[in-house]
């Protein structure tokens, strides 16, 4: 039984990592238990189906409306934030974003940074970037802190350390912190609190993500339970928020349904402990809060997704994690198997735009298209439809006209294409098809005992003695209610 799975030791491809994860019974039970509980909590939080569906429609409407006006909203947001005293920066790539953040920290001679939970900063691999430049960037969300301590990446976008149990965390604390902590969760958390408190006190810069950026008022909204988000955005003298360009909404009132959808879908909570609306740096007469607030708006492939009306829907995402909680594949293989920042169904549809489909060629196929993700998504992203689309992009010939996704055609295979052409022949020419049925049923005893990967989990399929075509023809000939004899 594996104690932990550090990133570096993972297999290099999706299937290999999946195999390793499936073989790790501790990991599987950690995930199964956690996902079951998250699913139950969400269901309880949305007990009224009509209310839920109405709210999801509103959520979808708000996100679609914002995206339909995205460039203007971003400009409005910038104007408002600037008027409020928040400085706005734009970055096309993660390198640019890192340079901006690093520049801001340098300008204040910063050496210690505390960070609230931010998936965009994970996209940027900000911790490593800053560490290489002798700046300590410490995660302050408990889950992120645990993961960082173990040199891992988050395995879930809401619950970064969900792959570990208390025993594993306690072993980690003992090993890395030299603290003798029991497996009692309270004790573990209090240890984290003590260590991170000191960091909040000392930090030169606080970094955070953003859940929603409100154009109307020039406000950054953050939700959280722990208080580390408030700490990171309040205690250090400089606050740098990083976020994707899609996070903007038009009006303040738009966040009412979105926050409700987010917290209920993610954790089954009617609301998180804190909803933090930041509309500026410290005013002259105020006694705390950062003197400077910056917002870095990151593209990192989002404009690419935006260019395609179907894939644009991926930008509706409010990062609630419900799709992964309900995904039977994610539940079994866990977040690290995906090998990228965003795991699970949402990861499969946003990652190709960030890193190129050729870097994650197996992602679109790693789904039974069961539809559980699309069913729960609070902003109604048609995830299965988008996976389907990515599968199409994935098998395009390389010379296919401008690809909608970077790295498309990574699964193109002439052989497979030929096979499907043959399949078309079989299924569009009744004579061929019947001949096939005849042969398959007549020679059923010759059916191969091994049928590729299928027989890894199944016995070999043996065709019936007579096909339905045959049986139906004979039956309908003699039927009291006479059928067609074609």
């Amino acid at each position: 039984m594996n104690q932990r799975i550090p990133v570096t030791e993972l297999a290099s491809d999706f299937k290999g990592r999946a195999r390793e994860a499936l073989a790790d019974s501790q990991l599987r039970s950690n995930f199964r238990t956690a996902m079951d509980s998250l699913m139950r909590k969400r269901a309880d939080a949305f007990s009224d189906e009509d209310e839920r569906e109405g709210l999801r429609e509103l959520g979808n409407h708000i996100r679609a409306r914002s995206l339909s006006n995205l460039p203007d909203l971003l400009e409005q947001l910038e104007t408002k934030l600037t008027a409020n005293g928040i400085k706005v920066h734009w970055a096309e790539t993660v390198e640019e974003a890192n340079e901006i953040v690093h520049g801001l920290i340098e300008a204040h001679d910063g050496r210690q940074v505390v960070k609230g939970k931010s998936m965009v900063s994970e996209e940027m691999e900000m911790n490593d970037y800053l560490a290489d430049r002798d700046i300590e960037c410490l995660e302050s969300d408990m889950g992120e802190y645990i993961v960082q301590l173990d040199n891992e990446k988050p395995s879930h976008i809401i619950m970064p350390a969900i792959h570990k149990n208390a025993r594993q965390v306690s072993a980690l604390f003992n090993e890395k912190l030299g603290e003798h902590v029991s497996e009692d969760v309270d004790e573990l958390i209090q240890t984290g609190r003590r260590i991170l408190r000191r960091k909040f006190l000392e930090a030169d810069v606080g970094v955070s993500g953003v859940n929603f950026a409100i154009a109307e008022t020039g406000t950054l909204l953050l939700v959280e339970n722990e208080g580390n988000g408030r700490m990171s955005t309040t205690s250090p003298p400089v606050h740098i928020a990083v976020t994707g360009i899609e996070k903007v909404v038009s009006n303040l009132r738009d966040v009412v349904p979105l926050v409700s959808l987010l917290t209920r879908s993610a954790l089954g909570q009617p609301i998180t402990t804190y909803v933090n609306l930041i509309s500026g740096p410290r005013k002259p007469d105020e006694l705390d809060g950062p003197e400077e607030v910056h917002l870095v708006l990151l593209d990192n492939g989002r404009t690419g997704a935006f260019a395609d009306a179907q894939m644009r829907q991926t930008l509706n995402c409010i990062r609630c994690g419900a799709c992964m909680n309900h995904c039977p594949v994610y539940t079994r293989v866990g977040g690290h198997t995906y090998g990228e920042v965003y795991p699970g169904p949402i990861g499969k549809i946003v990652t190709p735009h960030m890193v190129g489909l050729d870097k994650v060629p197996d992602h679109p196929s790693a789904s039974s298209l069961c539809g559980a993700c699309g069913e729960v998504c609070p902003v109604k992203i048609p995830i299965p439809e988008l996976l389907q689309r990515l599968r199409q992009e994935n098998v395009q010939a390389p010379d296919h006209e401008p690809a909608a996704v970077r790295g498309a055609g990574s699964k193109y295979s002439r052989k497979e294409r030929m096979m499907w052409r043959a399949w078309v022949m079989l299924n569009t020419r009744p004579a061929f098809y019947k001949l096939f049925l005849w042969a398959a049923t007549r020679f059923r005893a010759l059916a191969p005992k091994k049928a590729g990967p299928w027989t890894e989990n199944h016995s070999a399929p043996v065709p019936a003695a007579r096909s339905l075509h045959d049986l139906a023809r004979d039956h309908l000939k003699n039927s009291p209610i006479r059928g067609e004899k074609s």
Partner: protein
Amino acid sequence: MSARNNILTKLRTSLAGTTPRPDEFDESLVTGPWRYPPEQRIARLRELMEAVHTEVHQTTEGDWPELVAELLVKREITNLLYAPATPHGKQLARAWKDEADRPALRVYDRPIEEWKAQLFNEVQASVTGTIGGIAATGSLVLWPDRHEPRLMSLAPPVHIALLKASGIHDNWYDMMTDQNWAAGLPTNALLVSGPSKTADIEQVLAYGAHGPKELIVLILEDV
């Protein structure tokens, strides 16, 4: 500026020929299911806040300082951060004046840089006002200002919040429209719905993650 231009140009190109979607915000979806008869608002708020380990007391405009003293003494707390210039701060100070054995009162009268370590390490409890509450989600609304700065409700392990019963709104939407938040927000507006907590280890709830371990709400009913 080129990243900015590139991003905006790409977005505009992708939207060429389309018009923004009209605003079809249906407010009944965020208000309808979340309306309560006035007499049930307190009960609803209590129920939700208590479910996440908030201690809630119903008291009166006159009595609450005594209750604060009692709650602090019970916890063996020796100091309390308060805002002397606010009406409730003045009231608290009056109640404290002739009582020698009450926790020492401390004030947030300097920029944080001058006493951050003390605030983080020494202050044991704070008492602040709120600008109202939300029954639908069991939330307090705080708009920190120079008298009650942002860290006052965050750094001390115990936070006592005063909530006027008449300030409890049915839902967030009603509150923000009634008070016209869109016209201007403070540096920091907060919804607080319980003590700080985390479920990051095995989904086991633990309170007192980074913020207050205890949140005590005093609902003042006669105002």
